[in-house]
């Protein structure tokens, strides 16, 4: 066993967790949310209430479970081996998120490189074009759909060099302030740490607000909606899931900020901070991909 222990436990002893009801509570919460959500989507009347109950239970679970772990961490229960397990867990969780976004980036790539050109008659799509939609011509952004009457039409998309560019700058800056806050933690300067984290959280909130305003502009003025064919679908699902992740990341960083203010973390042991910082940088990198492939080219 490599020697990573900084705590009293020797590495030969495994950390054996006590029994916990949180996993089954989480399962019940998510199951309740899904049942409620499915019933709601089917137009049922009780679904939305079941969904709300599940969501409340889920939030309670998040507070309870993370609260327990934070308490154990602050009490010095975890040895160096547990610390490494946490790190591996976070790394592979973020990797799974990367693959989730890969599905949507893949859909965007496939639509732009293959299916839209085929609809326009390229390659093996000549017959489709000739017999089904002879008027249809390949373009991106796809303003003119094969069957336009069934969809919400738009004349313009959101340009890269307006709000999306400012948002890029905001997220890049927030990544830098997050790292700056980490330096503060490492040299043991609480003030420096709290200042850096506060700015990061504020930038995250500003980003989400600007995205929301931009969505309003797209829906109300441009006519660009989820129902705008493949362009609207890829645009809103990619940016929407990213916006959701920024929201989650902001909440995570705000939690860490609260813990910093309470005096949690030491300059050498602060995995909770690092996990959220990793997540924040991941969200940042996804945005760069979005800016390039969704907004810019």
């Amino acid at each position: 066993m490599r020697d990573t222990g900084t705590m009293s436990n020797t590495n030969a002893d495994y950390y054996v967790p006590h029994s916990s009801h949180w996993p089954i509570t989480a399962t019940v919460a998510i199951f309740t949310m899904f049942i409620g959500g499915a019933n709601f989507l089917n137009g049922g009347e009780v679904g939305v209430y079941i969904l709300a109950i599940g969501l409340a239970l889920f939030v309670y679970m998040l507070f309870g479970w993370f609260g327990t772990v934070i308490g154990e961490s602050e009490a010095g229960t975890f040895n160096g081996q547990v610390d490494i397990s946490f790190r591996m867990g976070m790394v592979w969780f973020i990797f799974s998120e990367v693959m989730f976004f890969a599905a949507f980036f893949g859909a965007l790539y496939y639509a732009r490189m293959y299916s839209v050109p085929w609809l326009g008659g390229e390659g093996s799509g000549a017959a489709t074009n000739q017999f089904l939609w002879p008027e249809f011509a390949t373009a991106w952004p796809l303003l003119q759909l094969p069957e336009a009457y069934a969809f919400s039409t738009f004349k313009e998309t959101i340009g890269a060099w307006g709000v999306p560019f400012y948002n890029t700058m905001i997220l890049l800056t927030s990544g830098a302030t997050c790292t700056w806050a980490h330096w503060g933690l490492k040299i043991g300067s609480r003030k420096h740490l709290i200042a850096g984290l506060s700015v990061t959280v504020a930038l995250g909130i500003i980003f989400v607000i600007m995205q929301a305003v931009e969505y309003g502009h797209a829906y109300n003025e441009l006519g660009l909606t989820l129902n705008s064919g493949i362009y609207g679908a890829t645009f809103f699902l990619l940016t929407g899931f990213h916006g959701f992740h920024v929201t989650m990341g902001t909440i995570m960083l705000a939690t860490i900020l609260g813990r910093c203010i309470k005096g949690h973390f030491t300059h050498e042991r602060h995995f909770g901070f690092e996990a959220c910082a990793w997540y924040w940088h991941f969200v940042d990198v996804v945005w760069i991909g979005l800016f390039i492939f969704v907004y810019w080219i």
Partner: protein
Amino acid sequence: MPGGAPAGGWTMYPPLVLQTGDAFPYLIFAIHFMGASSIAGAINIIATVFNMRAPGMTLMKLPLFVWTWIITAFLLIASIPVLAGAVTMLLTDKFFGTAFFSAAGGGDPVMFQHIFWFFGHPEVYILILPAFGIVSAIIPTFARKPLFGYGSMVYATGAIAFLSFIVWAHHMFTVGMPLAGELFFMYTTVLIAVPTGVKIFNWIATMWRGSMTFETPMLFALAFVVLFTIGGFSGLMLGVTPVDFQYHDTYFVVAHFHYVLVTGAVFALMAGAYFWLPKWTGHMYNETLGKWHFWLSTISVNVLFFPQHFLGLAGMPRRIPDYAVQFSDFNMVSSIGGFVYGASQILFVVVVVKCARGGEKATDEVWEGAQGLEWTLPSPPPFHSFTEAPDPSSITGGNR
């Protein structure tokens, strides 16, 4: 539920699946639910194996079962989120007006097939790799020889996992892909036969001049090697694009995946269950009943699935219940095999229940040639198995 079960089968192809009634959102959310738990479980396995191994248990000393599991965990983490993305697109197509899979809106139903099978092919290795691991534990035990070519087994498993991400479109050769795609996916698919062949070779070489005994776990493992190879060969046939145009969506495909998943994955599960039952329960199972279970299962499963090769080659389509009358004789044979196979599994339940309730006391080691840390623990093992890191050098004979 109004509208019945999900339309479109387990592959959920649009547009058919979008015609599902009220079951539709439940289908999608159930997949999200299972996907989340699969990812959580996979992360747990990776952290456990990489971080909590006993001192001295280097990676190249791990039991092959652990190796196959860790590679399976990587497959899960990389493929399940892609499935989550695919079904999320189905959900928004159905309820929120998106046009991912609707050509009328510039989307493409075939795009779903690509995203789905990017998950779907790694998924079949998620099912079979742990089975490979089980067989790799059982054959050395009952041949009383170390596993032949341990290192090559590890690398072959890794190679299979890597290749599994670049073969997906072999499930859709007839959908109208560009020629370059057909060729690429044919070559990569056929390439998988190489690491798989390495494995089969190693299992056989492990048995070569071993002092073999044939308890029930070994019988199931042997049947696995033979019958999985049949399934592997029919997979090779299906992987060759020009002939797949003939086999696609016929009963030949059904025969193929039942050979790899029933006589493959399920038989390995059976082998593993018999292998570890004494460890789990503390009692030996009834060997006579176990042997009856094995022979009845092995004979009937072949009666069940082998004729389906002929049915497929003769042109019987999958998923069409009212097949043409000329196929009825082979279907009758297949049905008889199916009922016998199903009934034989009652024997398995009897064996497990009897074993759990009592029987001859199992020793710690259980099997004479058993190797691995679990056999150093009492049968059944104590709660939490090891509360401090064990010493792997205590394993008699070592793991290789």
